[in-house]
């Protein structure tokens, strides 16, 4: 990021309260901001600084801190800089504002996050099921959802050494070296 770019950005963003900008390298910026000020930041960056591409919204479940972290990745084709705006919202009730009115593609990302984490975005056009149309359980990407336990409760497993395998073994096939016999070799 050149000196001029940096100065422009600083002038543009000086009105936003509580904004913390960290620069990682020439093309990566991290912005930590309060949830209330995020729509203003996005609108400013899109309208006045050429950050027209919302390339993704990602979500992190910080279960120990009882918070969700939402990260909005904005890219500018003119300065070729990626800004990641980080906010933290309370895990319960997990409700936030949609930025669909600023970036239209946000609808997809928000629908996806709603499905995977259960975060509800107010004002998003469609919060119905997206990819997991067959899923009835809790949002599966939450840290308190134990995928392994759920799988153990739901599915049956093939036997490790079923009867029909013995026929195959007599013909020279099957499991040649069991895990027990291989233990200690490595």
């Amino acid at each position: 990021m050149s000196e001029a770019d940096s100065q422009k950005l600083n002038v543009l963003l000086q009105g936003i309260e509580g904004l913390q900008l960290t620069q990682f390298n020439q093309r990566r910026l991290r912005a930590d901001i309060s949830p209330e000020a995020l729509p203003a930041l996005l609108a400013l960056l899109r309208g006045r600084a050429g950050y027209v591409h919302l390339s993704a919204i990602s979500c992190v479940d910080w279960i120990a801190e009882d918070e969700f972290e939402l990260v909005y990745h904005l890219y500018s084709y003119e300065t070729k800089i990626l800004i990641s705006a980080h906010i933290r919202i309370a895990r319960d009730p997990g409700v936030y504002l949609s930025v669909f009115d600023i970036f239209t593609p946000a609808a997809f990302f928000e629908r996806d996050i709603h499905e995977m984490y259960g975060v509800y975005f107010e004002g998003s056009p469609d919060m119905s099921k997206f990819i997991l149309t067959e899923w009835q359980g809790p949002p599966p990407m939450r840290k308190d959802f134990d995928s392994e336990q759920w799988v153990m409760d739901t599915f049956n497993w093939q036997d490790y050494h079923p009867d029909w395998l013995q026929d195959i073994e007599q013909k020279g096939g099957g499991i040649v070296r069991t895990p027990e016999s291989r233990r200690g070799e490595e």
Partner: protein
Amino acid sequence: MTQNELEKIEISTQPKRTNPLANVFDDLVRFCRSRSMFMLHYCTGCGAIELPPAMTSRFDMERLGIQPMVTPRQADILLITGYVSIKTLKRVILTYEQMGSPKYVIGICSCTVNGGMYWQSYATAKKLDEYLPVDLYIAGCMPRPEAVMEGMQQLMQKIKTGEADSWKKYYSHYDYYLGNQQQLFGNNWQTPTDIIGEAESYQLMGPQTLGEHTKILQQVQKPLEPLEMKL
């Protein structure tokens, strides 16, 4: 009914006919059937990458009489190449039920046997033979084209001797398969194909064709409506 009990049940194969000429004819039909198989490869996962070399000039499956086919109604083999997510499983079952009998299912890769490397995932089905009768598994992650060819030859052998009739199992034990499907998809699950009606027409009704799960199906079943055409 557990899987072990299911495996023990033998499907009564067609008894040998008394007319020796008819036997010769039956053998001929089975031989021809085993040498002209059309394969619908439902490429669910990564195992599909081993099929192009198996089908093209390097290993040349066509010399065994196996060809890829584009529609389920014209295909004999349903090849499931890799992990089956629950969403995909719905489509696999719809495809399987559309195929004309006799039909064979081959599960390729460890994922169809036991979930494979996705065993912890909430989104993939683990044992394919709980939902469909599988004739043959080709294990491996992924199996090489040689293994695929070997499996195909075994299937051909099974067809020639008349052992490969697990498609009859789907009709005679429909209640078991439907129960497992309902467990994943909910009790409102229904397919456009009338399996019970087909079982009656093929005379393949068994003691386990109807049961508690088919009762649920008959309660919730809605008659099919023509698709709405819109521009």
